[in-house]
């Protein structure tokens, strides 16, 4: 009798950034290359995940304008039924309670980033440990 084992297929894409000189367009470029290799992903899933990643990257990169150069790594895992993303950075530790961020009124000019990420994905978490920020998101996919 042949041994059987459960194989979970997953592809991992990584991008390390130093900001500056890297900027938000480097994240767009990394994601474009990732999507090009995963044509099975539905456009709506790609839009949701890319928008959430760019919102988090923007949040991280904005702190580099205050604190100087920041290291950031983005890891995207493409599973058959979901996409998971882990982003880490060494910027100032964020004092952040995700649940406290609600969508502001229509005429507000800021404050939509975190609520928008929550609306885009199925799972969203943040923690700061060992002087490192870790942001995790995941979304079920329909392909």
């Amino acid at each position, binding site marked *: 009798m042949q041994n059987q084992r459960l194989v979970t297929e997953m592809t991992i894409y990584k991008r390390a950034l130093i900001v500056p000189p890297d900027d938000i367009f480097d994240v767009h470029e990394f994601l474009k290359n990732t999507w090009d290799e995963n044509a099975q992903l539905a456009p709506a899933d790609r839009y949701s995940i890319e928008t959430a990643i760019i*919102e988090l990257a923007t949040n991280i990169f904005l702190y580099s304008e205050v604190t100087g150069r920041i290291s950031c790594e983005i890891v995207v895992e493409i599973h058959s039924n979901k996409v998971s993303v882990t982003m880490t950075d060494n910027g100032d530790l964020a004092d952040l309670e995700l649940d406290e961020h609600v969508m502001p009124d229509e005429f507000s000019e800021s404050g939509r980033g975190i609520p928008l990420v929550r609306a885009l994905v199925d799972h969203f978490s943040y923690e700061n440990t060992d002087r490192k920020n870790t942001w995790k998101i995941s979304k079920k996919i329909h392909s």
Partner: protein
Amino acid sequence: MKIHTKIVGDHVAVLKLEGKLNMVSAPKIRDEIHATVTAGNHKVAIDLTDVDFIDSSGLGALINGLKTARQAGGDLRIACPTAQVRMVLELTNIDRVLKAYENAESAFSD
């Protein structure tokens, strides 16, 4: 991001944007809308046909422009949002104050 500004009528300007409306391009859009309104064109139509991405920074620039135009007695309207832009407008409820028109040049023809 490229911005093409065109005066199409009495106090009416169309800003055709091309590229990604993110943290880098948002200040440029905000400044261009301000300059357009200050020049007397307080009815501003934003053509989003060639904008393939918007984030909350971009939304902030559009809302800032909407308030600038209204304070001058005009308005800001959007036209032809792509799929990602429509998704973000809906999730943030901004579609309630920025309804999408089919054509930027006729957005103020009513």
